[in-house]
């Protein structure tokens, strides 16, 4: 089966600009996650969707970050306006069920904010 797809793979923007990332999870996976991985750190959960509903967005900086998962499949993560500290790799992951089970990760989008 195809893995988790993400695009773009790399993005360079200036601070105060906006940017959007796209994720297509593995077919049939109900749960989708967005993580932020700052250089030298482990991934930090930003938001979790179950089908098209938000389960956990407690660590999402809602003043500048937004995410949606229309129709319970693809998802987009947006940053507007970006700050220097948003430079990181943004990872998307999906999981089949709604309870337990491993997460499958995409290759990530490396964002550089200058």
């Amino acid at each position, binding site marked *: 089966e195809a893995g*988790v797809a993400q695009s773009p793979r790399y993005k360079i923007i200036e601070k105060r600009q906006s940017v959007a990332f796209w994720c297509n999870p593995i077919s049939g996976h109900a*749960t989708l996650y967005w993580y932020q991985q700052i250089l*030298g*750190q*482990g*991934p*930090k*959960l930003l938001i*979790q969707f179950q089908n098209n509903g938000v*389960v*956990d967005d407690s660590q999402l900086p809602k003043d500048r970050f937004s995410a949606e998962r229309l129709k319970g499949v693809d998802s987009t993560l947006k940053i507007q306006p970006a700050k220097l500290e948003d430079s990181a790799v943004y*990872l998307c*992951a999906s*999981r089949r069920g*709604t*309870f*337990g*089970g*491993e*997460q*499958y*990760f*995409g*290759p*990530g989008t490396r964002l550089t904010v200058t």
Partner: protein
Amino acid sequence: AQSVTQPDIHITVSEGASLELRCNYSYGATPYLFWYVQSPGQGLQLLLKYFSGDTLVQGIKGFEAEFKRSQSSFNLRKPSVHWSDAAEYFCAVGAVSNNNDMRFGAGTRLTVKP
């Protein structure tokens, strides 16, 4: 809330030598435990997982890990390291709940000397 500590930021071993990467977790109930590997520019790949049952878990690429409840540890081991094992290794703990919220450690970078 659950948390993970990986005490070693960077480890260097010689090719063919044995390897042990340490992981300590904090969680009030029985956790789900995972080890992921991340090669440069790549997403995270699952090496192995512990949900219940046998506390010695076998994974891919010759890795194994042992869950020790009394020590709150889930250390990763490999008897003979290959040059291709050089990567970043992340331990993660998942909550036994509908959210399956997962927390990652900061990672251990493995360098393999020829």
